[in-house]
């Protein structure tokens, strides 16, 4: 689900105890924020032409804010489907690392571990940290609550958004870049990540007049390779 900014705003503090209930309780304070965040996705996705059902299904299956907003914004600005998918997949590549970190905590059948792994998003992962390891019950408890809030928010957004009329009148199109900026702001703590952001932004700016919509975003990923040359 992401948004490091959400978790710092709420100042998540975990109560003593383990178990799925403890995980659910720990994440409850940011549940409202996640609901609102999900609603904003529902509104923006519908405005981008994704309809009513697709954003809801997406929130259930992808459960990753940045990637979902990326697809909606690329499609909404007339970009190619492939470009939207590529941008979303690249944004989600970091879940490989999250999955590796969560792996030792998961038990059971392949299906069960695959299902529980879906619940590992930034906030649930953070709450599940216990003595330097990931606690499966905390992860699952937090993850389920976050998933419910995210999906419920999306439903509310797609259904309620139509009551608004023309979203541009409300400046809703400015919410996409503002949201990406907010997500970006939480990631600028190191030289390399700042370099990556600079490189990505510069590439996107340079390529916009030169390439079809959506392509500049995908090509901007090369900025990550450029940033590798910067000291960490």
């Amino acid at each position, binding site marked *: 689900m992401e948004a490091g900014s959400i978790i710092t705003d709420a100042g998540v503090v975990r109560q003593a105890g383990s178990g799925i209930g403890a995980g659910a309780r720990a994440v409850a304070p940011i549940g409202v924020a996640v609901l609102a965040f999900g609603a904003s996705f529902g509104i923006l996705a519908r405005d981008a032409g994704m309809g009513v059902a697709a954003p809801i299904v997406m929130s259930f299956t992808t459960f990753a804010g940045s990637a979902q907003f990326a697809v909606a914004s690329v499609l909404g600005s007339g970009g190619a489907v492939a470009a939207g*998918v590529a941008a979303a997949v690249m944004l989600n590549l970091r879940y490989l690392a999250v999955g590796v970190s969560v792996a030792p905590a998961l038990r059971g059948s392949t299906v069960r571990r695959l299902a529980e792994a879906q619940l590992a998003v930034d906030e649930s992962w953070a709450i599940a940290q216990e003595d330097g390891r990931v606690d499966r019950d905390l992860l699952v408890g937090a993850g389920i609550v976050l998933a419910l809030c995210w999906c419920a928010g999306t439903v509310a957004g797609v259904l309620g958004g139509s009551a608004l009329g023309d979203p541009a009148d409300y400046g809703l199109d400015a919410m996409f870049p503002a949201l990406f900026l907010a997500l970006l702001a939480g990631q600028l703590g190191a030289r390399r990540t700042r370099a990556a952001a600079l490189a990505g932004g510069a590439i996107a700016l340079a390529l916009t007049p030169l390439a079809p919509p959506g392509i500049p975003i995908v090509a901007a990923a090369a900025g990550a390779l450029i940033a590798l040359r910067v000291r960490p």
Partner: protein
Amino acid sequence: MTGVWVAVAGVGVATIALKGAGPLVFARRPLPRAPAAVMPLLAPCLLAALVVGQTVADGRALVVDARLAGVAAAALALLLRAPLLVVLATAAGVAAGMRALGAA
């Protein structure tokens, strides 16, 4: 709409696979070093590209309009450590205001 569903399905399958690959495939093995070094850099890189693309791009043209004012206001709100929803509302409000005033 077909394109929308293709996108949802594609991203869905990819994300389910990415989240599951750690527990199912890599288990206790660490990721190879080079991909592991690049991975944390992809999100800030792409997010910055998305900020640029969604603020000043209109198809293939670079334009300055109410969105830029909204994003600038959002940046200020972020510097002032406003909560996320306030940041988003600020962006929308400033952009809407500029349009209402006929300024952009």
